[in-house]
């Protein structure tokens, strides 16, 4: 016990990402005494290496593509200064991280910088930057250390030619050609970004479908859009060999059609995400990883009594809003309120062009358990989508036939990530389709597509051709 006041805190939080800091703030609002330990910068993956930086970049890509396709201004082709965009992104990151810092300070939360490891189930040791050590005990301990990318034996990320997402966020010159490995959410977003700025992008997915966990129709439509935008998509394909030559990489692709070789300047490999528990020595707390993540019960408690985990480190759904929701729910539990967190109602969002967002069951999942009705409306039928020149995409409803319960909503199209909250609200409050079709949606607005999608369940959409 080298330094610091060693008062028994109500909650010690390991990790300052959305899961950790939201739990800290809500906990402090409810009167808990809290220490939050972060080894790097506050904000976690989301603020520093994930959501916020990628969305800033994708916004610029979207802006660039919009200007390019808007004929009205007669703007001639113009170069992209990726360095400037990265600078803008860094500014945004700095601002939001500073914001979190200020909020934590305003709540008088004890923020400690240092590395953490478990000594036993209710004691942790912190190694501060000056190498001093301190043991801390809390009534409860929260692991909110997030996730990290797994190392792949074939695609060894070197940070130069084979890069991960973190390097991709800081490239100052645009690669002429880029292979993106995987068809998951992060891979698709980066493919969309580099393709929009003019890199020749090849997407390599080992399964038959990109975005494999998504509603199949949405994923198929997205693939078609990406191909049209210029992305080369190889499904059912794996990279069996990487051969670096002087100024490029030669990839050997093993697909259904056989072996193919492609040359690219860089490879982007987001990698599989697994719990970030390095150095944490969770085994000292008696915790064993399961499938690469920390297993928890419904109250987010690990196998060690009084040790909880939220966010990416528990797997389930890797996203900042999942981390935030689970962090807040944990505080609800610790302060004696019921947990309202529902794993079935976590939205997912992709900030591609166009955007994708969804919540609840896919059509394929729903049809396995019950009789369903489908309602769909194309954005092309919404006046506002025409106005802004983004008529590509669809709103899709999956509804239980018997009671009209909304089982899932999936949106591909402009502002999908905003529109999806209408569905979240409706599903959380168990609104049935009758209720959802009755409000007046303003005209013109993109939300009209949402209302029309509901009407289409009964084949009563107004601005839609039959069997489009």
């Amino acid at each position, binding site marked *: 016990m080298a330094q610091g006041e060693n008062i028994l805190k109500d909650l010690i939080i390991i990790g300052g990402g959305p899961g950790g800091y939201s739990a800290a703030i809500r906990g402090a609002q409810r009167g808990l005494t809290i220490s939050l330990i972060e080894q790097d910068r506050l904000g976690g993956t989301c603020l520093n290496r994930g959501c916020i930086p990628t969305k800033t970049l994708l916004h610029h890509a979207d802006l660039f593509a919009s200007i390019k396709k808007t004929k009205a201004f007669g703007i001639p082709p113009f170069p992209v200064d990726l360095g400037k965009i990265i600078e803008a992104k860094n500014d945004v990151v700095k601002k939001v991280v500073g914001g979190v810092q200020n909020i934590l300070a305003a709540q008088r939360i004890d923020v400690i910088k240092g590395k953490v490891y478990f000594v036993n189930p209710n004691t942790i040791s912190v190694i501060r930057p000056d190498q001093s050590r301190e043991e801390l005990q809390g009534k409860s301990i929260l692991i909110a250390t997030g996730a990290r990318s797994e190392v792949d034996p074939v695609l060894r990320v070197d940070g130069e030619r084979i890069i991960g997402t973190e390097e991709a966020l800081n490239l100052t010159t645009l690669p002429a050609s880029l292979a993106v490995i995987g068809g998951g959410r992060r891979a698709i977003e980066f493919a969309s970004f580099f393709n929009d700025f003019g890199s020749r992008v090849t997407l390599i997915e080992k399964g038959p479908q990109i975005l494999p966990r998504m509603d199949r129709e949405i994923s198929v439509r997205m693939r078609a859009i990406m191909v049209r935008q210029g992305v080369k998509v190889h499904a059912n394909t794996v990279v069996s060999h990487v051969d670096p030559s002087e100024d490029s990489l030669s990839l050997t692709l093993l697909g259904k059609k056989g072996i193919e070789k492609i040359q690219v300047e860089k490879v982007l490999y987001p990698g599989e995400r697994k719990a970030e528990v390095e150095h944490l020595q969770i085994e000292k707390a008696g915790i064993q990883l399961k499938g690469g993540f920390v297993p928890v019960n419904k109250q987010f408690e690990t196998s060690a009594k009084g040790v909880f985990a939220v966010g990416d480190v528990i797997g389930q759904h890797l996203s900042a809003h999942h981390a935030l929701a689970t962090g807040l729910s944990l505080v609800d539990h610790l302060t004696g309120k019921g947990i309202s967190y529902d794993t079935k109602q976590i939205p997912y969002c992709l900030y591609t062009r166009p955007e994708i967002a969804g919540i609840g069951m896919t059509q394929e999942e729903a049809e396995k358990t019950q009789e369903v009705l489908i309602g769909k409306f194309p954005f092309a039928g919404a006046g506002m989508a025409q106005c802004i020149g983004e008529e590509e995409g669809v709103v899709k409803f999956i509804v239980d036939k018997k*009671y*009209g*319960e909304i089982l899932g909503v999936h949106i591909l199209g402009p502002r999908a990530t905003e529109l999806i909250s209408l569905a979240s609200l409706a599903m959380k409050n*168990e*609104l049935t389709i009758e*209720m959802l079709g009755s409000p007046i949606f303003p005209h013109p607005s993109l939300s009209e597509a949402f209302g029309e999608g509901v009407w289409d369940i009964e084949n009563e959409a107004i601005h839609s051709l039959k069997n489009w």
Partner: protein
Amino acid sequence: MAIGVYLPIWGMQMEEGKVVKWLVSEGDLVEKGDPLVEIETEKITNVVESPDSGIIARIIAKEGDVIKITGLLAVIIEKGEDSSAIEAVIARGKTIVEKAEISMMKPETKEPLIQPTASMEVKASPLAKKIAQEKGIDLKQIKGTGPDGRIGKEDVLSCIEKLATSPRARTQKEIPEGPDKSFVGEIVPMSQTRKVIARRTLESIKSPQGTLTREVDLSETLKFRKSIMPEFEKQHGIRLPLTPLFVKAVAIAVKEVPILNSRIEGDKIYISHKVHAGIVVGVKDGIVIPVIFNAQAKSLAQIAREWEDLSRRAAEGNLRLDEITGGTITISNVGNAGIDVFTPILNPPESAVLGITRTRKRPIVKDGQIAIGEMTYLCLTGDHRVMDAEPIGQFLVCLERVLQNPATLIL
């Protein structure tokens, strides 16, 4: 309007509460929600809040009084009301208690499916309403788990499931509603005591138990008691019944065979070095088991004094919760009932119970001669998870040795 402040029901087991301290006095102005009085129950101490704003006109229950649930504690009046209003509330208060006592006798359901909602508006999601309507379920009968008690889909579904599987629903199908016409006899509601005994004994038989019996000659014990009785009475002012002798004998035997003084927790056996001996006492409509704590460290006289006090208060129904919980081993003496042999059942979480039966003069063979023995049977039940027959047998042998050398009891 004048209103009464009544003792709330804070739990299913609560029957009465003791007025600890009044926080207001007669004549005080109070607001709705103001703390009025501290009440102590078997389990908790809690504060009764003012049901309305007004003036404390009369304090009915004085500090130290024990009041039955829903009993009248005080009367609150509005400004300008006179004593007739107070008297009216007091008169009403009496009938409320009678009604509450009758209603408390109704068999309790553990988790009420049906919540009294009166004229409260039902909050339910559109989906929940739709499912309830289709299934013919009255939403007023469902307790919502959502914010503010809002009823959601899951609440309706779990209600449907409960209705389908509850025994009530099943009997309703088999027997038409209303009293069974073919039953000739009396239907008696279970008293609180019987309910507790029902629950505890049901819990007990979940463990595998076996009883071993040994015939023991108590001649020496009785002789010993008789010989010390006059001096004992003179010194301690009380008689010496047999029970304290048995308690002491058990405490000595535990020292030799400690496993009988144990309990299971998880996958561990906790063998206690302290002997907290529970003794079964018959009371109106059931039994209670007051405990003599640390019997291993107490003299025979101390045990006798405590036993005198506990048994008297048990008969009066005046035992505290802490006096009837925390035993490590139990003694049940059914000698007065004229029983020869029985199989006592465990008092969970304890692992052993000693049954003592009536003592009779019987011919026995002693030193090759026919003699008269004061014979009894000791019936000792053990938890088979904790022990096999051997320690039970050893314990009985040890008891016999002590009882036949009763000087050991005062060593």
